[in-house]
């Protein structure tokens, strides 16, 4: 029957589950099945005894809580919790059997302990536990209170008494120190005041006496000393000596003046006369034509010049304490404020916690054990606290006395010493200062004044004598000098006037003789020297071959052999000039009394780096290896034409923009038509449309502008651009140069951006290529301006779509994207695709793609 009922129930349940499975999702179905199986298992649980209900199953809540729950949980809970009592055991059998009879037969629960039994077990536990707790408290409280109380009391007593003893020791020391300090301070103050007063008084007295004596001696001796000096001078031979010296001085001065003026005049006159005299012979010759030997030298020199010019020509400028207050006001622990002695709240160690009663029923056993433990603990704590507190304070007092006694037996000499030192110091300082000041103020003036008077008396006379002598001597010297000079001056002037004419004549002649001797010793003189340009235009240009013309006069009374006469060129600013011929010997004799114009001397050139600077040279004539005469000449290096940038260049990407150079003819000759200006720059940044341009004719001092069109090939807004301009005459001669580097802005109204970096590669491969561009109006403010786009490409590329393309007008700042389809007809080609954008016909930007 039971089996049948179960099978019916199962079949119904399964049917229901199947029906549900048609409509419910699988997880919900699985959950429902699990619940169903759980319910069946529970209903069939009779065979297994009283199985525990699933407390998590809301369908099976415990209907009744366990009766008489323990008020205190057991200290050591039983390992097996009590099972739930059966729920509502049927008191009466059902009158009518249920339609669906219960699956479990009614089970009669075993009989549990009665309330009486439970109360008894509880009472027994309490009764057994209480005496054991009292026992542990009795065992421990006294011992522990004694130990703790004595320790605490000892510590506190020791601390208090120690502090008291230290203070007493310190006070005693302080008093003793004060007595000793006073005594010592007074003694020492007096001694030192005596010492200082004597030393200072002596020192200051001496100074004071010396100063007073000095002042008085000087004042008292000045008059008498001066009077003595004057009278002695008046009685001296000053006037006679002055006259004698005047005569000597006049003679000496006359001679010196004659030498300075008249001898020099004699030399100048002689020199002038010699130069003014017409030479008997006048020679003119060019070194170039005279010496075959020089030709070879010249050839070598030109080779050197060429080698030297290769470098610099293209260079140029690139160069709590907390703690509760549960204690007595004296800091000792209290015992009567509802509080306990420290440590009174101990916990039992359960040394006697051994419940002895054994019950058959587990519940009763648990009740007994629980009540036993609770009673044990309560009894322990209350008894322990009481016993402990009583014993603690007694032990505390004992310990406190012992601690204090121990403290009083300590050595407090250090505290006493500290007090004594402090007392000494204070008293010493005070008494020392009083004693010192009193005595010093009394002694010092006496001593000082005594020493001052002694010193005064001792030094006065010596000082007086000294000052007297000084005054006398000064007065004597003054009067003597006056008398002396009054006699010397007239005697000197008189003598000078008498002697000078004689000396003048003598010295003039001596001067002439000396100059004549100089002419004899240095008969060759440079009378003129100048630079000769190979390109005579009044400008000494860099690299221009320069020579010199020197005029040499022979004052000798004989002809001088030419091979002994050398003319030499020396550069005083050597880094600016290259000298290829620096010395010449005269190829023939220099005639007697002759003036010789020597032409085409030397060969040298100025380096480009000297442009704008002055170069100095020295030309020297030598005869028989001795310097005869020299002359310094200067040159300023300039190009014939000065070049300068006209304004600040501004470039545009893809569009020609002007770079203008101004040319000024600095020479005195006209620059004929045909000069050509060349412009070199960094061609990776800028393309120059016509890099070489012809200049018009330029008269002396006039200027012209040359305009180069340059196209920026960069998207950078500013570039650092090197620019080299050179200007060459029709014969190729460099007549102007400018080497400069400027920061140049690159400005476009419109900017083109290629949006695919691979395009130049794609254009090498046959097929359709779309070139994507972005065009941006960068700065054009014009409105209503249509844009036109023109593409030029090599024949191998076929531009598809309209060409030109027309684009919408763009506002300033606006950008648009567009693409240009190009058919590459064969692979491997190369060339340039150029995209030009016009704003209503005005070219505004050009972009090139090189592939």
């Amino acid at each position, binding site marked *: 029957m039971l089996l049948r009922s179960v099978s019916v129930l199962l079949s119904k349940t399964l049917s229901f589950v199947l029906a549900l499975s048609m409509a419910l999702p699988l997880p919900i179905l699985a959950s429902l099945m699990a619940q169903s199986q759980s319910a069946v298992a529970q209903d069939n649980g009779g065979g297994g005894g009283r199985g525990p209900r699933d407390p998590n199953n809301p369908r099976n809540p415990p209907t009744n809580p366990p009766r008489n729950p323990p008020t205190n949980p057991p200290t050591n809970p039983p390992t097996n919790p009590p099972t739930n009592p059966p729920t509502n055991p049927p008191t009466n059998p059902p009158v009518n059997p249920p339609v669906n009879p219960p699956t479990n037969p009614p089970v009669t629960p075993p009989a549990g302990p009665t309330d009486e039994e439970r109360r008894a077990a509880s009472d027994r536990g309490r009764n057994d536990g209480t005496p054991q707790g009292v026992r542990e408290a009795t065992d421990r409280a006294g011992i522990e209170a004694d130990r703790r109380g004595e320790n605490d009391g000892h510590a506190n007593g020791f601390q208090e008494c120690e502090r008291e003893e230290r203070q007493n020791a310190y006070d005693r020391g302080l008093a003793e120190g004060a007595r000793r300090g006073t005594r010592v301070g007074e003694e020492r103050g007096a001694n030192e005041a005596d010492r200082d007063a004597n030393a200072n008084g002596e020192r200051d007295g001496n100074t004071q006496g010396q100063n007073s004596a000095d002042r008085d001696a000087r004042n008292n001796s000045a008059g008498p000393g001066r009077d003595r000096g004057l009278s002695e001078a008046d009685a001296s031979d000053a006037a006679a000596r002055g006259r004698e010296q005047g005569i000597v001085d006049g003679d000496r001065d006359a001679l010196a003046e004659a030498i300075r003026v008249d001898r020099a005049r004699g030399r100048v006159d002689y020199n002038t006369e010699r130069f003014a005299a017409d030479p008997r012979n006048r020679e003119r010759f060019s070194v170039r034509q005279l010496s075959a030997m020089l030709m070879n030298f010249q050839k070598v020199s030109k080779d050197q010049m060429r080698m030297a010019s290769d470098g610099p020509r293209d260079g140029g400028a690139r160069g709590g304490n907390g703690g509760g207050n549960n204690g007595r006001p004296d800091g000792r622990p209290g015992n009567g404020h509802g509080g306990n002695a420290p440590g009174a709240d101990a916990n039992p160690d359960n040394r006697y916690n051994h419940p002895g009663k054994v019950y058959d029923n587990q519940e009763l056993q648990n009740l007994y054990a629980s009540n036993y433990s609770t009673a044990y603990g309560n009894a322990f704590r209350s008894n322990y606290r009481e016993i402990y507190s009583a014993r603690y304070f007694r032990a505390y007092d004992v310990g406190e006395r012992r601690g204090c006694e121990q403290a009083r037996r300590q050595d407090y000499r250090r505290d006493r010493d500290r007090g004594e030192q402090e007392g000494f110091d204070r008293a010493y300082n005070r008494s020392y200062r009083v004693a010192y000041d009193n005595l010093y103020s009394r002694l010092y003036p006496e001593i000082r004044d005594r020493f001052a008077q002694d010193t005064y008396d001792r030094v006065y006379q010596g000082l007086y004598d000294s000052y007297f002598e000084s005054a006398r001597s000064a007065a004597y010297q003054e009067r003597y000098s006056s008398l002396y000079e009054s006699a010397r001056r007239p005697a000197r002037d008189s003598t000078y006037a008498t002697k000078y004419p004689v000396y003048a004549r003598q010295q003039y002649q001596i001067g002439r003789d000396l100059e004549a001797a100089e002419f004899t010793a240095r008969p060759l003189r440079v009378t003129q020297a100048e630079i000769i340009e190979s390109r005579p235009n009044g400008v000494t240009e860099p690299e221009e071959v320069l020579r010199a013309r020197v005029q040499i006069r022979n004052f000798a009374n004989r002809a001088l052999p030419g091979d002994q006469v050398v003319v030499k060129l020396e550069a005083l600013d050597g880094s600016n000039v290259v000298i290829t011929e620096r010395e010449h010997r005269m190829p023939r004799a220099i005639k007697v009394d002759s003036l010789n114009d020597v032409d085409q001397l030397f060969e040298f050139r100025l380096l480009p780096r000297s442009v704008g600077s002055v170069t100095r040279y020295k030309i020297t004539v030598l005869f028989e290896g001795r310097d005869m005469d020299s002359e310094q000449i200067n040159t300023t290096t300039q190009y014939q034409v000065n070049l300068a940038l006209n304004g600040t260049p501004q470039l545009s990407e893809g569009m020609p923009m002007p770079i203008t150079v101004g040319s000024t003819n600095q020479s005195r000759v006209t620059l004929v038509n045909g000069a050509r200006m060349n412009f070199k720059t960094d061609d990776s940044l800028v393309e120059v449309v016509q890099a070489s341009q012809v200049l018009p004719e330029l008269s002396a001092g006039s200027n012209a502008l040359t305009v180069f069109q340059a196209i920026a090939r960069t998207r950078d807004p500013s570039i650092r651009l090197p620019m080299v301009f050179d200007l060459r005459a029709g014969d190729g001669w460099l007549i102007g140069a400018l080497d400069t580097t400027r920061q140049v802005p690159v400005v476009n109204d419109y900017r083109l951006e290629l949006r695919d970096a691979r395009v130049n590669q794609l254009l090498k491969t046959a097929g*359709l290529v*779309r070139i994507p561009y972005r065009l941006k109006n960068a700065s054009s403010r014009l*409105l*209503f301006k*249509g*844009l*036109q786009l023109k593409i030029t490409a090599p024949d191998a590329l076929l531009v*598809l*779509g*309209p060409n*030109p*393309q*027309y*684009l*919408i*007008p763009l*506002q*300033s*700042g*606006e950008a*648009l*994207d*567009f*693409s240009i*389809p*190009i*058919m590459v007809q064969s692979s491997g080609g190369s060339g340039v695709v150029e995209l030009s954008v*016009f704003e*209503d*016909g005005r070219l505004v930007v050009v972009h090139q793609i090189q592939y």
Partner: protein
Amino acid sequence: MKAMKMFKISNLLLVACLALLSACGGIPSAYQGEFRDDALGANLKLSGSEGTFSEATGVLVKTPAMALAFEALQKGKPGIYLRKNPMREDLIDIYWIQPRFTEKQEAGGLLWYPTDVYYTLVSTAQEDKVNELRMIYSRNALVTLEPSTKSWQVGWAANPTEFKFRRTK
């Protein structure tokens, strides 16, 4: 069913187009009215949704105004196309296009055809009626379309005719 779907889509497109047009607001009222360029003998009449241009020679152009749409340009539909200027929201570019659509060409993914174009730029911030209106006209103009990206260009050759209209009504 398919016809119904197409009908719904076309309605949606219509609403979208109308929304676009209203976004531009049609031809702003400050520019509506009648204008004349005495020098060139041209007359211009603008309403909110339509424009009429006539010359002494008898040329007469009358077209509706609409928001600029790629599809309309692709079909070569004449009209006054309005576009909000991307740089300034208060400006509207007006392209009045009279295509010569039969001359259209296609190559390299581009479609282009010649057109007459009138172009002007008007301000939606203008409240009072304008007395003068400047307009560019070019017969040598192109509409260039790139269907793959739906991008478009309307441009003209250099030196177009420039009308300087003065309001007459």
